[in-house]
C-alpha cells in the first residue's frame, strides 16, 4: 500500500469530500447534509458498496475505521441504512446513508463486510431488528439479538407489541394524548386499544407542528430576513437605527396597558407589532433602493425579487393573523388589522 496522504492538517472539508466522491461516483451521490456537526452523504443504493470502498481506499479520505451501522425506518418509503465511518488519520467522521431497494416488503442492501470486517455483526443486528437483507453477507442467520425463532422485526414502526394488545398502556404519559390546550385527555384504557409506536409518532409529529408552527415561523423570519435577502445592505441602511430602537412597539404597548391588559401580555403583543412594523419598513426601503439603482446594477433585479417575495409573505401573514384573530380577543384583531394595513401600504 502506498503512503497515505491524509493528515489531520489536510483533512478534507465536507464540501471537498462530496466533490471528490461525486467526481468518482457521479449520480451515485444523491445529496448531503451537515447536521449536528455530522456530515451525511446520501448514496444511491447501487453505489453503496462502491462509496464505502472509495471512502476507505481513497488516499485523501482514508476512512479506515468502521464505527457503526444501523437501520432507520423511513415509513412509506421503506428503510434506510446508515454507516458511520471514521478516519484515524484525518479525524473526520462521515455518515453514509442509503435508501434500501425493495420498499417496505423486501428491503435489500449491499453488504460491506468485504470492505469493513466490523460491519458483520452490525449488519446481522440490522437484519434482526429491521429485516433488511444484506446481499453478500456471509450469514445473517441465526439471529443474534433475539431468540432464534423470533418472528417479526421489532424495531420496525409497524411492529405490534403483543403485551400492549393484551393490556393497554396504563398511563397518559404521551404528548399525543393532550388536547390543544395542553390538557390531558381522559382515556379509559380498554383491551385491544394499543397505540403502536407508528400511530403515536404520527400523531405527535402532527401535534408538534400545529403547536410550534406560528411562533417559530414569525421569530425565525424576523431574525433571518435581513441576511437571507439579496439586498441585505440596502435593507439595513433603510432602518440603520435598528439597534437603538426599543425592543417593542411603545404605541401598542401604551394602548394595551390603557385598556387594562397585563404588562406581560402587552409587552409580547407590542413586540410582535414591532417586528411587523420593521418588516414593513424594510420592504419599503428595498423598494426605494430598487427604484434608485439603475438597470446596469445586477443587485437591482435581486432586490426587486426579494421585495416581491416579501410582499407575498406579508400578505400571507396578514391573512394568517386575521384568521388567528377571529378566535383571539378583540385587541389582537385590532393589532393584526393595523399591521396588515401597514404592510399593505408598503
Amino acid at each position: 500500500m502506498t503512503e497515505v496522504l491524509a493528515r489531520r492538517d489536510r483533512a478534507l472539508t465536507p464540501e471537498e469530500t462530496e466533490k471528490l466522491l461525486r467526481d468518482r461516483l457521479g449520480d451515485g451521490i444523491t445529496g448531503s447534509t451537515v447536521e449536528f456537526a455530522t456530515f451525511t452523504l446520501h448514496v444511491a443504493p447501487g453505489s453503496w458498496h462502491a462509496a464505502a470502498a472509495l471512502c476507505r481506499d481513497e488516499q485523501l479520505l482514508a476512512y479506515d475505521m468502521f464505527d457503526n451501522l444501523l437501520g432507520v425506518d423511513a415509513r412509506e418509503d421503506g428503510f434506510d441504512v446508515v454507516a458511520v465511518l471514521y478516519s484515524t488519520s484525518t479525524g473526520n467522521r462521515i455518515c453514509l446513508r442509503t435508501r434500501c431497494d425493495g420498499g417496505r416488503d423486501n428491503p435489500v442492501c449491499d453488504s460491506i463486510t468485504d470492505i469493513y470486517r466490523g460491519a458483520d455483526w452490525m449488519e446481522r443486528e440490522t437484519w434482526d431488528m429491521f429485516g433488511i437483507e444484506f446481499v453478500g453477507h456471509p450469514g445473517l442467520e441465526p439471529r443474534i439479538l433475539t431468540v432464534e425463532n423470533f418472528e417479526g422485526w421489532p424495531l420496525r414502526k409497524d411492529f405490534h407489541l403483543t403485551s400492549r394488545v393484551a393490556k393497554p398502556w396504563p398511563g397518559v404519559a404521551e404528548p399525543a394524548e393532550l388536547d390543544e390546550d395542553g390538557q390531558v385527555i381522559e382515556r379509559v384504557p380498554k383491551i385491544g386499544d394499543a397505540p403502536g409506536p407508528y400511530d403515536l409518532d404520527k400523531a405527535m409529529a402532527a401535534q408538534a407542528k400545529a403547536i410550534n408552527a406560528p411562533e417559530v415561523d414569525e421569530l425565525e423570519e424576523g431574525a433571518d430576513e435581513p441576511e437571507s435577502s439579496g439586498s441585505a445592505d440596502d435593507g439595513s441602511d433603510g432602518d440603520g437605527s435598528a439597534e437603538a430602537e426599543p425592543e417593542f412597539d411603545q404605541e401598542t404597548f401604551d394602548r394595551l396597558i390603557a385598556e387594562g391588559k397585563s404588562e406581560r401580555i402587552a409587552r409580547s403583543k407590542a413586540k410582535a407589532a414591532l417586528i411587523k412594523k420593521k418588516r414593513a419598513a424594510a420592504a419599503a426601503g428595498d423598494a426605494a433602493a430598487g427604484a434608485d439603482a439603475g438597470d446596469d446594477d445586477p443587485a437591482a433585479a435581486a432586490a426587486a425579487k426579494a421585495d416581491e417575495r416579501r410582499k407575498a409573505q406579508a400578505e400571507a401573514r396578514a391573512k394568517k393573523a386575521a384568521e388567528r384573530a377571529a378566535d383571539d380577543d378583540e385587541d389582537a384583531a385590532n393589532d393584526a388589522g393595523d399591521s396588515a394595513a401597514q404592510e399593505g401600504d408598503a
Partner: protein
Amino acid sequence: MGLMDQVELPQPVKYVFNWGRKYSLWCFNFGLACCAIEFIAASTSRHDFIRHGVIPFAHGPRQADLLVVSGTLTDKMAPSVKRLYEEMPEPKYVISFGSCANCGGPYWDSYSVTKGVDQIIPVDVYVPGCPPRPEALLDGIIALQDRIQGESLKDRIAGRRLDPITLGADAPLAIEGATGGASGGPT
C-alpha cells in the same frame, strides 16, 4: 439424600439442622442489569450480608443454595437461567430481586423481556422495587431464613414448596423503608 426425603426429622435435630442451613447460604448471583449493582452493594461492607451468613459469589451453581436473580431477564437469557438453576442441588432457593425479575418491570411491553423469572423457575421470595435498596435484599434474606428455620426438610427435598413470599405484600417489612423506587414501596 437417602432417608431424609422419606422420614421427618425429630424436632431438635430439625432445629439444629435448619439453623445450620439458614446461616450458610451459598449464593449464586445472576446479575442481569441495574439491580445487580444493588446486589453488589448489599454484599459489600456497608450492608454486608455475609454477617447474615450469606456467602456471595459461589464458584458455580453446583455449590450454591441460593439463586438471586437481579435484573432484567430477556428471552434470550432465560434458557441459561433455567439451566443453571437446574444444575443447583436441592434444597435450593430463589430470590427474585427487583421489578424486572418479578414481572418485567418497566419493560413489561417489550418484545424481548421475559415477564418475570417465575415463568421459568419457582421463586421463594419476591423483592419489589426498581431497584430495591440493599436493605430490601437483607429483608428478603431474613424472610427466607425465617422460612428455612421452620421448614420440613422432607418436603423440601421432595420438591414440595411453600407459596412464595412477596415482601411488602404478605410479609411485614423487618426494616423500615427497605424497598424503594417505582414499582413497590412498603404497604
